[in-house]
């Protein structure tokens, strides 16, 4: 059963009609082909219109859509010979953070990603994609390994943010994020980061301090969730919609602010309607970005990254 967002309601009605017709035709001999194709083209029109002018708050809903392609799906589709690696060698395995080795279009790479989970059970196991300190420490471990063996790192981010829990705090969530950013900055090989769904604050930048950063058309990237921002600045989470506009969190905004290098286009009706096309587009975009940094020395890659992040402020310090 497909889940429809509020602004997709007209589409839900049309798809319901098609279902009804199909049901009818299976009972009798009514020829429904014409009517179905008429409805289909109406759906296409509605989708095109709706998705061409999504408001930031609607983008937030799309980015959080339960059917949005998950990182494990993306890894299965884009990488071959994937070999998962577990644990931070210190405390425990964090199932919210996936890491491992694999091949991307035949070339060996290291992969890091946050996984929100597919089913209820899986979501609980993955902590809804909210990483704990041990997850960031595992990511750091993988980046160090990748650096030593000359493997580019690809990070795929879809997280509401780092987990706000008692144990996470006691084990140094802040320090773990800071060290993970540091590991990204000091990585000797290329780091290509992709924001897939939600790019939630420190939990996202911990993995996305890349040489090249790309983002899906309907993904969002923000310093704080619109709800969190609203409850602090408007003193009520009811203003999340206002906050989502003020925060400038869409892919277009990120492009204009120089935070990302490319936008990955999504199929009609967003990635959750056609995950295969979305993932294929992502694969092509990653290949493009890897080509951009190919042949650069470790020193150049580190210097490029530093310059990239130093530019967010005044130049003439």
């Amino acid at each position, binding site marked *: 059963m497909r889940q429809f967002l509020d602004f997709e309601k007209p589409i839900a009605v049309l798809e319901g009609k098609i279902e009804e017709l199909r049901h009818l035709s299976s009972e009798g001999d009514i020829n429904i082909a014409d009517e179905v194709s008429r409805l289909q083209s109406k759906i296409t029109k509605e989708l095109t219109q709706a998705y061409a002018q999504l408001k930031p708050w609607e983008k937030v809903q799309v980015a959080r859509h339960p059917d949005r392609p998950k990182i494990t799906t993306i890894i299965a589709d884009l990488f071959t010979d994937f070999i998962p690696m577990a644990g931070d060698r210190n405390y425990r395995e964090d199932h919210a953070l996936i890491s491992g080795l694999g091949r991307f279009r035949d070339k060996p790479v290291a992969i890091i990603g946050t996984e929100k989970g597919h089913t209820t059970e899986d979501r609980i196991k993955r902590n809804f994609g909210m990483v704990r300190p041990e997850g960031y420490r595992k990511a750091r471990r993988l980046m160090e390994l990748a650096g030593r063996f000359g493997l580019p790192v690809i990070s795929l981010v879809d997280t509401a943010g*780092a*987990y*706000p*829990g*008692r144990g*996470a*705090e*006691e*084990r*140094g*969530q*802040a*320090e773990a*994020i*800071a*060290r993970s*950013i*540091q590991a*990204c*900055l*000091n990585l000797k090989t290329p780091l290509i980061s992709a924001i897939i769904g939600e790019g939630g*604050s*420190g939990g996202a*930048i*911990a993995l996305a*301090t890349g040489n090249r950063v790309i983002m899906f058309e309907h993904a969002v*990237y*923000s*310093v*704080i969730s619109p709800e*969190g*921002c609203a409850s*602090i*600045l*408007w003193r009520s989470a009811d*203003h999340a919609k*206002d*906050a989502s506009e*003020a*925060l*400038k*969190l869409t892919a277009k*905004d*990120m492009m204009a*602010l120089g*935070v990302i290098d490319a936008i990955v286009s999504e199929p009609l009706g967003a990635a959750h309607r056609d995950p295969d096309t979305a993932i294929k587009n992502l694969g092509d975009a990653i290949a493009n970005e890897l080509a951009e940094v190919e042949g650069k020395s470790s020193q150049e890659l580190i210097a490029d990254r*530093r310059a990239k*992040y*130093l530019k*967010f*402020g*005044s130049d*003439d*310090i």
Partner: protein
Amino acid sequence: MNWLSRTVLPKIKALVSPEPAKETLWIKCGSCSQMIFHRECEDNWNTCNACGYHMPLSPAARAQLLFDANSIESISVITAEKDPLGFRDRKKYSDRLKEARSKTGDDDAISVAAGEINGNPAVIATFNFSFMGGSMGQTVGNGIVKAARQAIQRQAALIIVPSSGGARMQEGILSLMQLPRSIVAVEELREAGLPYIVLLAHPTTGGVTASFAMLGDLQIAEPGAIIGFAGRRVIEETVREKLPEDFQSAEYLKEHGMVDMVLPRRDQKRVIGSILDMLMSSQPAKAAE
């Protein structure tokens, strides 16, 4: 804002203005409610003489506390683009900035100064929590980069004294980008072989802890300071359990291995001085003297 308007004008104003109001003569301790005479409070670096509670300390007073007498030199920080997102909540960001500026007399939430501590060259960057909660936007990032580069230029130690609610929401994603940016700054310092000490003041949370503030060669915290990534309320709502009273306090962090020591103000200069004496004893710049 320069030395003249920041330091001299208020002093002249104080001279010509009538007797200060009663409430400024006596300060109520925020913890034990003891009334403390203002002179006594200042002499104790804004700590309560009854219970030891550490009240906020201005960046200027912090410099006085840590630096050797007569060695302090203020370093200017470039102000970044005022309101890059055109942000507006219930108030315009540009108005909030104006208010914070007139309230504190500072341009933004960070002040940088150079000087000596026990004769060791040092640069100190201090956050001012009363400027928009000490939040970190592009100008604060400028301050950290400036402080690190000045430390390198002067072959000095870098000390950062954060006191911040985290990233400045009104600068959106650009404030998040200050996390990697500030880490680049401390990496440059590390490569120059200079010491980096973080002195965590109350409160230090969010994006500030998740970047430069947790990467010191030594991590020192002020007594009772609250230090953490997520806020207590958010955690309580997430985990639905009552957290310990002293959760995220400096003392709690020390027990969990997150800071080297909890140090009251009266000991800070002496201990930081000793640390720098030892760490900088083999510095080429110093050995050449």
